[in-house]
């Protein structure tokens, strides 16, 4: 068993001449709360794609619990406990919230080949679905189709899907994007209440949220790691301010947010 739960070694991904991930090393210990920040187009989502297996790296390796999973399909990585959420909601939009979560919990409980028991009578699955719905404050829209929900609620379902799988490593790709301020508290509470043994990598532009939930951070700029360290040191770094935070601060001022 390796010291690191999730590790990326020398990951590179290029599309033609464009290098979107350039020799990225990343090491997350068990229970880490690690933020991945950087300007738009820095390759953060691509990195999540490489870690989750949706994108194949041009070179480099990904280790999960010390095992090389670089060649493993996303489904295999998920079954090993690596779960991601999507920046843009990616759900079963014609199904209800309950059905969406049923798919996740059902898969976790290995009911994927259970052909003879009625789905609606699997109380062990339904009970867990119920618990996740309560935890995310989704009781009021549980009966609705995902496509009929407000975008903020869809985002919460997106997070709920990941939690339902009881991950060991959780990759959150901009979880707060699109969630109205009024419901942001639910998200923060949920992330803070996660089992301390779960390793979390969070991509987020909302610096207040990052400061609250993350202990370490990696700054990615143009596909490369610019800086890595404890969250306080990273936030205080002048270089980080110059390439990213300064701009982010200015942008939020000009929009009148926060």
């Amino acid at each position: 068993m390796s010291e690191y739960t999730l590790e990326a070694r020398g990951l590179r991904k290029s599309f033609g001449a464009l290098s979107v991930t350039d020799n990225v090393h990343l090491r997350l210990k068990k229970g880490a709360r690690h933020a991945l920040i950087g300007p738009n187009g820095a390759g953060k989502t691509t990195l999540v794609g490489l870690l989750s297996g949706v994108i194949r790296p041009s070179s480099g390796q990904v280790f999960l619990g010390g095992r090389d999973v670089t060649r493993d399909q996303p489904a295999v990585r998920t079954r090993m406990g690596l779960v991601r959420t999507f920046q843009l909601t990616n759900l079963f939009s014609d199904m209800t919230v309950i059905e969406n979560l049923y798919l996740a919990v059902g898969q976790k409980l290995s009911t994927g080949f259970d052909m003879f028991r009625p789905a609606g009578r699997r109380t062990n699955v339904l009970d867990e679905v119920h618990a996740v719905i309560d935890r995310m404050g989704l009781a009021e829209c549980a009966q609705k189709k995902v496509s009929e929900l407000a975008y903020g609620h869809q985002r919460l379902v997106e997070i709920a899907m990941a939690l339902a799988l009881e991950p060991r490593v959780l990759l959150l790709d901009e979880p707060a994007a699109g969630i109205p301020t009024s419901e942001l508290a639910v998200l923060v509470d949920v992330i803070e209440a996660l089992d301390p043994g779960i390793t979390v990598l969070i991509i987020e532009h909302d610096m207040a949220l990052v400061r609250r939930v993350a202990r370490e951070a990696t700054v990615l700029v143009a596909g490369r790691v610019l800086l890595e360290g404890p969250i306080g040191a990273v936030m205080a770094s002048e270089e980080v301010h110059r390439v990213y935070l300064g701009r982010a601060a200015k942008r939020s001022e000009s929009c009148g947010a926060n």
Partner: protein
Amino acid sequence: MTLAIESSKALVQYRFSTYELIPFAVAIAFYFVLPDYLPLGTAICVTAIFALSLDLVIGYAGIVTLGHSVFFGIGAYSAALLSRSGWGEPVSTVIAAAAVAAFFALLSGPLLLRLRGLPLIMVTLGVASVVSEAANKLSWLTGGNDGLPGLIFDPVFKMFAWSIDGKTAYLYALAWLFVVLIVARTVVSSSFGVALQGIRQNELRMRLIGAPVLSQLVAVYALSAGVAGVAGALYAQSNGFVGLEALSVDQGVFALAMIVLSGIGRLYGAIVGAVVYMVVQYTAQQWDPYYWMLAIGVMLVLVVRFSKGGILGALDALSAGLKRRMETRL
């Protein structure tokens, strides 16, 4: 407090509704009211089973194939060859034929089901054409163009002989339709069935929640092939003859037309579709033996133009509309 799941159709579809008795009540009534048309009724039952097998893969799992005639043909020829080799017990013949068809699906599925959309349609169509042509050449096995005539099967359960009036064949095929429908219904309302619907809607997300998508698709493909094999075997038994038309690519295309006509992904659609299609075909052939396809074509165009969910979709919309009216009046 328990979770209310009423609005989640995929989870509550295991519950029986009284409407589900209608097709079988009609089928029993048909037996007594129109005894002269029992051979047509038998053909409808066989076709309905085949259409149902196609609905399992297309309507639930989203596997669009034009090559399902292969499994119908394999079932038909398996039953015929068993009979030729001296095995005439009908029920075990059907089960064996289904197993052979499912076996070929298990072999071909892991390769074919990596494809999606247009490439899958074209490859299944290609495979079906090749198999049909190969059967023509392998005349030592299939009888080639002459087919395998004069098949003889034992009485059903050693009691009901295959009578000239077609009564046994009709009730036998109807019983199989009932059995197949119960099995299909159980499978689509299970956790596996919900997962298939998940794959149809968002395959990437299913992979990312860890689902073994390819294996699940192969499983439903094999099940569906088995059902198509049942239809093929019943075709052999009720006609006493199997020819190359059992493997004809047209079969798969007609079955697709049936489920589109009545509404995809609802099992009973396959039954309604088979009835409507076969009755229109029969009547149109009486009217004009050459241009009967015209009637089918016009009907398809009209249904697809005016109702998104086929005939049953239109009925749903109608009953929802009536309900709303009643509510506003109250």
